[in-house]
């Protein structure tokens, strides 16, 4: 790896970790109602509760909490579905884009409420400004707030003793959006506009081309292709003197897309598009925004359970796995493609070029900022991309795929990453307990059969969806029809799609044509169960823990704030991830890598 590559990874980690304590502490105070903003904006908060018939002082048991989460997200999905179907009748549609198909609308609706933001469609050719703003961007906020609310409820399960309730979802969700997401998004959006991200409501603009473009297009007569005497389709030369520039309120949506680890781009090319991500600095800000809240929540967790060392230990485990993965991704992309070297292409990094595998990457980002972005977006369940993962080298593409398959717990999505990692912590403590023959406990709570059952559900739901779904898709004609690349890479495309959907990431090996009724309906269902199957089990754990009394730690209990625990936690995550996915990965990226270096 180049010196510059190491420097960028180091700089990124340093800035990120520097922001953990200030933001994490602020969030803890916000949820405890002790922050200054709680007082300043108290009238707004009270007005929101009054208008929505919510009693903010009503505490909820876990079953109640889970129920309102489901109602709220069900209504959200219905709203996004309806807006897409009816957008042609609604305002702010200067391009007169038609209503979206039923299966695509279903997929996109679930995709956005589940914080996945998988894009089966191309934004600039499908969605009106109205749909983007009132449907998609709203769920960017609300799905993020849902994830954070659920982890706060789980933290209360640890922090409270001998109680029955885990908080009020409406209060947690409202405080998250009002005090955390909205202020951060506004600042970030303006920062992005300063770099050139667009923010307007005008119709698409037309500008002249300095050199007009000529191309061949199939000749058509009234919609029917024209053929010659032998039946071959004829084509005609077309010359275009102009370029159409898409417009729209991009920056406001871009900011929450990263901060809420949503990842659904305004445009088809997502953060590779110059209007979404115009400069290396905008790229750095976007990368920072993706992991900012997931990292800070670790500190919030430590603070709320009364021992910040517990939070730092979890954060250390995440950071360790992240650094290893980032270095691997940058290294393999910098190696380039051996097939090009034979053709007389210069892929070496030098003072004049970034070199490496540049297919699907932007010049301003080069290999380092592209591979780092890919690692960040899949460590988090964000799924924004600034380079096309489908064109990564086999092992460079294995990194993002495996990060998703680990269950999105290396930082992970906002809220969802930490609750996933805390479930892994429960499993790690359980394994340690088995080794020394003691009842396992974590943060003073005895872990018993019920918690372990629910933790197993969390760990097993997504691999089941990914592996069974991939197997079914490659066995059926409708599943194989979407594959665009031949050989092992085609299998990787399908495996990546299911990993992304079930783990609520949303990035893709985008060569896969997934905007079909088959993929739209199956991946849509995988996103729903991958999200809410896990959330219900996590809330069940919270509900079971909150009832328990604090068990005083003895000489035989494992301290969960030291290096030993960090190693145990990292090993548990990697072991579960490796045991589950090595066979599938061997069939995809590993085989492709071996073929590539053998020159086949």
């Amino acid at each position, binding site marked *: 790896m180049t010196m510059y590559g190491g420097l960028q990874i180091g700089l990124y980690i340093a800035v990120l970790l520097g922001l953990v304590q200030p933001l994490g502490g602020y969030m803890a105070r916000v949820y405890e109602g002790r922050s200054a903003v709680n007082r300043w904006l108290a009238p707004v908060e009270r007005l929101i509760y009054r208008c929505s018939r919510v009693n903010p002082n009503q505490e909820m048991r876990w079953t109640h909490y889970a129920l309102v989460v489901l109602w709220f997200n069900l209504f959200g999905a219905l709203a996004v579905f309806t807006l897409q179907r009816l957008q042609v009748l609604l305002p702010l549609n200067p391009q007169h884009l038609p209503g979206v198909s039923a299966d695509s609308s279903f997929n996109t609706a679930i995709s956005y409420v589940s914080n996945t933001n998988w894009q089966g469609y191309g934004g600039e050719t499908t969605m009106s400004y109205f749909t983007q703003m009132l449907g998609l961007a709203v769920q960017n906020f609300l799905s993020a707030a849902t994830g954070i609310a659920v982890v706060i409820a789980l933290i209360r399960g640890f922090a409270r003793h001998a109680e029955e309730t885990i908080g009020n979802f409406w209060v947690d969700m409202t405080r998250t959006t009002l005090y955390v997401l909205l202020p951060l998004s506004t600042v970030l959006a303006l920062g992005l506009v300063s770099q050139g991200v667009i923010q307007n409501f005008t119709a698409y603009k037309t500008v002249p081309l300095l050199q007009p473009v000529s191309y061949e297009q199939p000749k058509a007569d009234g919609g029917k292709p024209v053929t010659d005497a032998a039946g071959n389709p004829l084509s005609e030369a077309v010359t275009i003197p102009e370029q159409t520039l898409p417009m729209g309120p991009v920056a406001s949506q871009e900011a929450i897309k990263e901060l809420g680890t949503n990842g659904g781009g305004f445009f088809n090319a997502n953060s590779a598009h110059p209007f979404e991500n115009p400069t290396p600095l905008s790229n750095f800000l976007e990368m920072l925004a993706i992991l900012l809240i997931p990292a800070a929540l670790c500190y919030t967790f430590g603070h709320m359970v009364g021992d910040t060392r517990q939070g730092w230990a979890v954060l250390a485990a995440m950071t360790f796995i992240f650094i290893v993965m980032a270095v691997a991704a940058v290294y393999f992309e910098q190696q380039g493609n051996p097939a090009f070297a034979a053709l007389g292409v210069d892929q070496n990094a030098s003072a004049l*070029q970034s070199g490496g595998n540049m297919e699907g990457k932007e010049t301003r980002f080069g290999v380092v900022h592209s591979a780092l972005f890919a690692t960040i977006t899949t460590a988090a369940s964000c799924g924004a991309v600034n380079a096309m993962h489908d064109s990564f080298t086999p092992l460079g593409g294995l990194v993002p795929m495996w990060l998703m398959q680990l269950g999105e717990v290396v930082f992970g999505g906002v809220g969802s990453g930490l609750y996933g990692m805390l479930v892994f912590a429960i499993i790690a403590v359980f394994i340690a307990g088995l080794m020394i023959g003691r009842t396992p406990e974590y943060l003073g709570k005895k872990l018993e059969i019920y918690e372990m059952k629910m933790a197993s559900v969390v760990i097993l739901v997504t691999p089941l969806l990914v592996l069974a779904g991939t197997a079914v898709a490659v066995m059926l004609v409708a599943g194989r029809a979407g594959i665009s690349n031949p050989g092992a890479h085609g299998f990787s495309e399908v495996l990546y799609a299911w990993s992304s959907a079930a783990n609520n990431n949303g990035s893709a090996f985008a060569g896969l044509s997934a905007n079909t009724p088959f993929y739209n309906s199956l991946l849509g269902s995988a996103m729903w169960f991958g999200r809410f199957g896990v959330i219900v089990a996590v809330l069940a754990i919270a509900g079971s823990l909150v009832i328990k009394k604090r068990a005083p730690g003895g000489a035989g209990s494992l301290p969960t704030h030291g290096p030993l625990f960090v190693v145990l936690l990292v090993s548990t995550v990697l072991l579960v991830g490796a045991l589950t996915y090595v066979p599938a990965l061997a069939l995809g990226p590993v085989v492709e890598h071996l073929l590539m270096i053998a020159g086949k």
Partner: protein
Amino acid sequence: MWNDIKPAFFMLIIWTVITGIVYPLAVTGIAQAIFPSRANGSLIVVNGKAAGSALIGQHFIDPKYFWGRPSATAPMPYNAGASSGSNLGPTNPALIEAVATRIKTLREADPDQRNPVPIDLVTASGSGLDPHISPAAAEYQINRVAEARKLNPESVRKLVARHTEGRQLGLFGELRVNVLELNLALDGLR
């Protein structure tokens, strides 16, 4: 149950208004006031008329212009109305063939240029709209452009240097040359 459905419905309405209408309108208002040019697409204005966007690349195949990254958008390259990468995998024969064809085209346009071809000049960008090439890719084309325009290569090289952006803040990103701006400047040289 009704007591849970009511708040779910009203909360969605309230937050749709706040995050879906108030927030983007507020950001638009501030952005249009502070950064009007950038918020509207960073258009390059020549003689009072828009001549493209500084952020969106255009397609060049004339030897007298610097060429940008290959673009995989459909139906024509650099179609800003439908951004897209090629999504070709690293071992896909179609990718290897496409790169070989691009190398051949470059060699035919400038038979005297025998150096290895910089990678970014023969691989499609992620957006299909990449406005930049690496300084190496610009250097590779200087002789061809100078010859086609009957200019001294040194004066073209100076122009390229003037349009080369360094790492942002000295820290972030790669060195790059904005192709459209460079070509507009070349046309202004005549």
